């Protein structure tokens, strides 16, 4: 199915948000997720099933002043 990740369309098999993050090779710590424009707490990621056309923003902290 098609979902939107950080502004780009991607194909992915149906899975939970947590699975998706692991597929991307990211470690959940220090990542923040907006799922369809709502911030979703880390502990809920495994319960969120990604749907066709979902919109994800995966954010993390970087150096800044």
């Amino acid at each position: 199915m098609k979902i939107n990740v950080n502004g780009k369309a991607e194909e992915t098999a149906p899975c939970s948000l947590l699975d998706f993050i692991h597929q991307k090779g990211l470690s959940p710590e220090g990542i923040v997720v907006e799922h369809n424009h709502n911030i979703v707490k880390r502990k809920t990621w495994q319960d969120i099933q990604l749907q066709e056309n979902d919109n994800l923003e995966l954010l993390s902290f970087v150096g800044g002043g």
Partner: protein
Amino acid sequence: MVEDKLSIGNYTFTNRLFTGTGKFASKSLIPEMLNACGSQMITVALRRVDFASKTENILDYIPKEVTLLPNTSGARNEHEAVRIARIAREAGCGDLIKIEVITDMKYLLPDNHATLLATEILAKEGFTVLPYVSPDLPLARRLEEAGAAAVMPLGAPIGSNRGLETKAMIEILIENCQIPIIVDAGIGKPSQASAAMEMGADAVLVNTAISSAEDPVTMGRAFSLAVEAGRMAYLAKMREETKTAVASSPLTGFLS
């Protein structure tokens, strides 16, 4: 001397040098620098994960005892600033937020009014808000009323190392505001940080001057000593300048 503490919202600091994580040649310098200067609060920014380059997590380089100060860099208006702040808090970084709303890309000067609007919203939501602004007394008073925990006036454009070019206006903030004044941006030399503290600033935030020094670790230490020196001098009360000389040795001739 009784311990000299700085309170910002519910946070308390004994070291008045705040630092930043931007522009270090290697992230591994950050913990070394923090260890050398003893800074107790450091800024971080938030951006989309870049899948191309698996960048390591900046947080891994910051010792747990150091307080994180997420900034809203990248925000072009109050709405984006508010959104970034909420995400940062959600990320478990606590409720501190440095509001930074910038539209001018050449001098990176803050949008004072948008910053006030974001401050009003976020303070109501329980954030400990540190707005980064051009020094302006009427605005600073509104920030106080809006519930800002401190005011962060710039000394000069970000990263310019030009020093305290807004000195006169910052002095007026210090004299007339109740909340802490933290000089942020533009400080390029320890002597400038010292001068800010001597005139009564409560703290300074230094990033570029440390991270882009040839030896960032030693420079971090230099800034922390300078900040401490300036603070001590402020507390120990310096004498005024005099136009003419004031002898330090007896003025009499040697044999008279």
